[in-house]
């Protein structure tokens, strides 16, 4: 039954998401053209104030539009979660012959997949802007890459190896924490309030965010404070990065722990504390 519920969740989000994805592709094309125009005008020393103003404004709008894209995916997933679970649709969702665990897992997997897909689309969009906007982009990249790799070889150390290994886990833990916290806030908001579920969810999320940043600051003050508050070069930072590795490890554990905790609290509420209107 998980496959079936996942199919419907995925279809619902995809139905809106692909339109936004297409819009961002269009924006990327416009952004690339604007960037090319700006570079060409600057190279040719053309002094056209109106063009520069409009081109920069246009380019800025494109960048804002692209940055909003992952946010749009988040909003679509949250709307799906809220409507499917806590609006009147919940009367159908929770009377399907499907385990509550499957219902929640499907929502989490859908959210995670669309976050990854949105980031992938964003990377492609940025690539498009650069390819269109910068003449001979690939040649410049081919020149730049060996230099970057040489520099990386110079500063490479065991600590950086550990960082590279930990980083994907940190990203995954951070994404799962975000998803589970969003969902938990909606669930708790629905449990404590029948009329103002969304408002209650927002309030809870605000409180959780403040608490999270407080914990994060405590951890960083014990681990990377000397790296953050002293002026050091990138090379020094990278070569003395054991503290940074510990910080990354602790944050991964913290995010993972919160994700797991939020998941089980949410599941408990969905199983035992449903508060449909």
């Amino acid at each position, binding site marked *: 039954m998980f496959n*079936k519920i996942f199919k419907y969740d995925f279809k619902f989000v995809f139905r809106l998401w692909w339109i936004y994805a297409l819009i961002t592709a269009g924006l990327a094309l416009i952004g690339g053209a604007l960037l090319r125009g700006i570079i060409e005008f600057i190279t040719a020393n053309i002094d056209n104030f109106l063009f520069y103003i409009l081109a920069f404004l246009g380019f800025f709008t494109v960048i804002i539009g692209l940055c909003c894209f992952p946010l749009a995916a988040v909003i679509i997933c949250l709307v799906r979660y809220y409507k499917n679970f806590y609006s009147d649709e919940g009367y159908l969702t929770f009377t399907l012959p499907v385990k509550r665990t499957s219902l929640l897992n499907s929502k989490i997997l859908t959210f995670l997949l669309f976050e990854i897909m949105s980031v992938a689309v964003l990377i492609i969009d940025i690539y498009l802007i650069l390819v269109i906007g910068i003449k001979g982009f690939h040649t410049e990249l081919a020149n730049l890459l060996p230099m970057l790799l040489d520099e990386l070889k110079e500063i490479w150390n065991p600590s950086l190896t550990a960082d590279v290994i930990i980083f994907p886990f940190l990203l995954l833990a951070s994404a799962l924490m975000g998803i589970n916290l969003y969902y938990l806030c909606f669930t708790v908001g629905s449990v404590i309030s029948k009329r103002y579920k969304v408002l209650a969810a927002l309030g809870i999320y605000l409180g959780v965010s403040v608490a999270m940043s407080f914990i994060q600051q405590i951890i960083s003050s014990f681990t990377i404070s000397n790296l953050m508050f002293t002026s050091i070069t990138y090379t020094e930072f990278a070569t003395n990065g054991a503290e940074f590795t510990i910080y990354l490890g602790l944050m991964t554990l913290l995010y993972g722990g919160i994700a797991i905790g939020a998941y089980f609290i949410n599941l408990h509420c969905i199983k035992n504390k449903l508060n449909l209107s």
Partner: protein
Amino acid sequence: MSILECRSLYKNYGNKRVLENMNISVPAGKIIGLLGPNGCGKSTLIKMICGLLVPSSGEIWVDGMPIGPQTNGIISYLPERTYLSNGMKVIDLIDYFCDFYRDFDRKRAMKMLQDLMIDPASRLRTLSKGTREKVQLIMVMARNAKLYLLDEPIAGVDPASRDYILQTILQNYNPEATVIITTHLIHDIERILDEFVFLGFGGEIVMGGNADDIRGQYGKTLDELFREVFKYVQ
């Protein structure tokens, strides 16, 4: 064998006790009216049977199984509210029910839609509230469920629609199944009931039994009897 059993069932909302030590055994193959004044716990009981609410204590067994996904597979539930997603087409809804319920009869659903001249390609948001409610009733009654739970199916609809709803229930329910109908509009449904239960506040079973026997015994309709029993409660 009973299709539904509630044993020592309690339900509290905070400090307020809605159901207190309720014990009920419902036989298979009957149409049963769960009748009681507003706020006596009819909908709460139905929601607990569907798994939407968890009892404070006690047990509920449906067809010998505790409440869970398996029991949801044999219960067809019509809530008071319209639970359909407005963005869906009627045909998508039929596919959805086919996907999740093995006992869903697609042909029967299409036939009922045709009888009501509802275009399966139409989106639910384009239909009137009354038509959406009818679509929901069709989805519920197109299943060959073992237990139908119909929570206030005729509340808030005009008399002609009430007749249609009751006719749909009678024509389409699986004859081996049990139908539990909650309502306080007894006059309209009493002709279709085999059995009835008068539920008082706190889930107390004030009176119950075979509808015809009681009518014969008291020389009154269920509606008249209900008014007499709950005269002071309202």
